């Protein structure tokens, strides 16, 4: 068990892929823990246009049945938190234990002056949600319903 400190970089760690109706993104990271963090940030950038580091911190705990459903549960939780706590998540410090995830979400308070240039995400789709490891790179592809 270890804590991974995610570095919040300005550079985009994800790219948008072609999808007619919704938003599909590909996220890359050097570890599975970082992949969760970067996936959260990708979701927030899609929703709010920017996801800058801030002083807000929130504890997060989710479970899945496998890594795919764990990612689904985690991103769904980030979506929930962002809406209910009015938090724009810029990353996460997470630890993984099998199909359990525990950690801290980092970010800033939502502001209608700053965060209106994205689009509302309704949910995280299971369709074609994939996580692939290639040597030292983990790649996530996921579709956000908008």
């Amino acid at each position: 068990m270890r804590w991974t400190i995610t570095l919040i970089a300005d550079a985009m760690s994800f790219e948008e892929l072609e999808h007619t109706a919704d938003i599909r993104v590909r996220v890359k990271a050097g570890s599975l823990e970082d992949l969760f963090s970067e996936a959260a940030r990708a979701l927030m950038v899609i929703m709010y246009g920017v996801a800058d580091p801030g002083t807000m911190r929130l504890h997060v705990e989710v479970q899945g049945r496998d890594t795919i459903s764990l990612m689904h549960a985690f991103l769904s939780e980030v979506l929930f938190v962002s809406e209910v706590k009015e938090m724009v998540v810029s990353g996460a410090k997470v630890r993984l234990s099998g199909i359990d995830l525990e950690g801290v979400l980092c970010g800033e308070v939502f502001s209608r002056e700053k965060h209106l240039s994205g689009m509302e995400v309704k949910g995280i789709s299971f369709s074609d949600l994939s996580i692939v490891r290639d040597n030292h790179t983990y790649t996530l592809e996921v579709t956000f319903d908008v």
Partner: protein
Amino acid sequence: MLQGITRIGPFEWEVPVGFVAGMRVPGRFFLSDQLVETLEPGAVQQLANVATMPGIVKNSLAMPDIHWGYGFPIGGVAAFGMDEGVISPGGVGFDINCGVRILSTPLSVKDLTKKRELLEDLFAAVPTGVGAKSTLRLDAKELTGMLTNGARWAVKHGYGIEEDIRHCEEQGALANADPSAVSQKARQRGMPQSGTLGAGNHFLEIQVVQEIYDQEAARAFGISAGQICVMIHCGSRGLGHQVCTDHLKILEAATKKFGITLPDRQLACAPLSSPEGRAYFGAMASSANYAWANRQVIMHMVRGVFARMFSLAYEEMHLIYDVAHNVAKFEEHQIDGRRIKVCVHRKGATRAFGPGSPNLPAEYDQVGQPVIIPGSMGTSSYLLHGTEIAMDRTFGSTCHGAGRVMSRTKAKKQLSGHEVKEALARKGILIRTHHNGAIADEAPDVYKPSDEVVRVVHEAGISRYVARFTPLGVIKG
């Protein structure tokens, strides 16, 4: 056309059993030659995937606005038998009862001398966009009332009149809603968002009746050429989204528990009679009711603005009808000569019940149900009526809109929100939004031509033209 798909009528195509392993029934979809070019292989694959689900009856169907979604394709319709059948959030979507309603006014274009002012007043009255907060102050009990009684809750609390309820699909509330199946998380999201328009493709539009095709039906629906109307498009907001997320997880486990094999995890489902299936239905119906209440409250705000600005009486503005686009419902249909109760899933499709169908108000009984098809921003919207052919061929269903052809990524790269806004202004269509990015994303060019989609459902007979509306002012979330 994709290999293996055969044409079975001027506007109808069949996906044979075997196109995807495990299909139980053929798939069928409606498209014209012009729209065939827009058909995505992924959407056909999803249509075929639906045909593998247990208890599916007759056909897996898609309307001419078919496009690639998740789980079901957008435009997908499927009915499941009560004994063997299943229920799936993938056949409803995250935005449960995303739907549309249209309100008529006694005004004509010449009355709209202050269109910009009207649009600004509507924008101020209706909470719109990401993070917008409700002006309603709901407690837990009132939210439960909303989840149980839908539009009836809103009318009871002064947000409408009795006639409004009769002019909603299902009278604005699905029976057997079970608010106890709606999680605290969903309630937390729903509480501050009731009576808000939302964002994305949701909109509020001032329109004029441009053309009447069927005078008798138009009379029954209470509209005439030149009349000003208001269209409202939104759904169950974060509450419905959370219900879908919560129950997707439950139904994923149920899929495994009941030994159901599926080609897509988003099609996670459970038998209709199972505790998991019943819980999802109860929560989904609650969310649908929340959406009906939501549209009712928004329409009340719109009526308030028109009443103030034009000195109109509330009762002079009539709800023509309200339809759901994303929902699963129990309905009776004639199948193989027998009347059978089924669970019809419509995901990006509209109910289009024909004349004499149960559940229609007396004033629409001879004509059939009003069917509202919103166009993309800046293009025509249509009012149609349901038909016997729809009852026979599509479980009383038709299209729900134009259907996207351009990804949002491409739209953002190719189109400037400011330029789209200016181009529409030159056509006399004013747009009001918090951010121009939302305009590029929903520009007319990213959708199939709504005229052609509607022509297909008219020619195929699964609904028939009544009137065409053109936009004058649009509020985008």
